[in-house]
C-alpha cells in the first residue's frame, strides 16, 4: 500500500534536505559579524517605526474567506472532471447547477464591491 507512495516520500525528504542544507550551510560557513544596526529588522533603510506586531486590515481576511469558498468549490470540480466522460450529460447539468449557485455568490461579491481595495 504505502510502497506506491515512495516517490512522494523521497520528494519530501529531498525537499527537506535542500531546505535544511541551504539554511544549515549558510549558518555554518557564513561569516557573522553582528552589530546593533545589522540585528535590526530591515525597514527600507530608515530607522524602525514601532514593531512588526501591528494590526492588519480586515480586508485581507475577507479575501481569504472568499478564497476558501471558491477553493472548496474546486475540491468538488476535481473528481467531477476526472469522471467527466463517464457521467455524460447528467454530470454536466449537475455541475452546471452547482457552479451556477456559486456564480450567484461571485456576482454578489462583485456587485457589493467586496473585492475592491478601498
Amino acid at each position, binding site marked *: *500500500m*504505502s510502497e506506491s507512495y515512495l516517490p512522494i516520500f523521497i520528494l519530501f525528504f529531498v525537499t527537506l534536505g535542500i531546505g535544511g542544507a541551504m539554511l544549515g550551510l549558510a549558518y555554518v560557513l557564513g561569516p557573522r559579524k553582528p552589530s546593533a544596526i545589522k540585528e535590526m529588522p530591515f525597514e527600507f533603510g530608515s530607522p524602525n517605526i514601532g514593531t512588526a506586531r501591528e494590526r492588519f486590515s*480586515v480586508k485581507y481576511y475577507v479575501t*481569504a*474567506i472568499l478564497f476558501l469558498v471558491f477553493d472548496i468549490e474546486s475540491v*468538488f470540480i476535481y473528481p467531477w472532471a*476526472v469522471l467527466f466522460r463517464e457521467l455524460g450529460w447528467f454530470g454536466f447539468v449537475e455541475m452546471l447547477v452547482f457552479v451556477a449557485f456559486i456564480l450567484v455568490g461571485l456576482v*454578489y461579491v462583485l456587485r457589493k464591491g*467586496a473585492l475592491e481595495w478601498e
Partner: protein
Amino acid sequence: MDVFVFYAAAAITLLGASMVLVLANPLRAAMALILSLGALSVIYVLLHAQFVAVMQLLVYAGAIIVLFVFVIMLLNLEDPKTRRSWPWVAGVFTIIGGLSYGLARGLMVDDNQFITSGPPHVNALSKDYGTVEQVGREIMTTFVLPFEMLSVLLLVAVVGAVVISKKRL
C-alpha cells in the same frame, strides 16, 4: 511497512498538536498545526482515503491555515515574551487527550491485530476504495442532492462573509 509508517505519522501528528498547545508564539503554533495536519494526511492515505488526504493538504494545511494566520495578524498580539503563560492549559489538554485515548483503546475490539497489521476493517477494503474516481462516483450518484445543497451552503458563506465584513453595503 504500513504499520511503521502509521506509527511515525501518528507520532508526528501528536508532536505537532502538542506544539500548538505549548508554543508561546501564535504564528509558530500555526506552523506546528501545518505539521500536524500534514502528518494526518499520511494517516488518511493509510486508511485508503487518498482523496481526503489530498484535500486535507489543499484545504486545511493550505487555505485554512492562511485564514488562521490572518486572524493572528488581526488580533494585534503583543510580544509573547511579555505575556503571561499558562502551563496548566497544556496539562489539562494532556489529561483530556489521555482519557480519550484510553476510551478509544477500550472500545477497540481487536487490539493485538491493530498493533501488528493496522486497522482490521481497512485491510478488508479494496485498494481503490478512496480514490478520486470512487469518491466522485459516490458524489455524483448517491449523494447528488447533498452535493447540490452544498452549493447553496457555499453561497450562504459568501454572502455571510460579505455582510459581516463590509462596513457599508
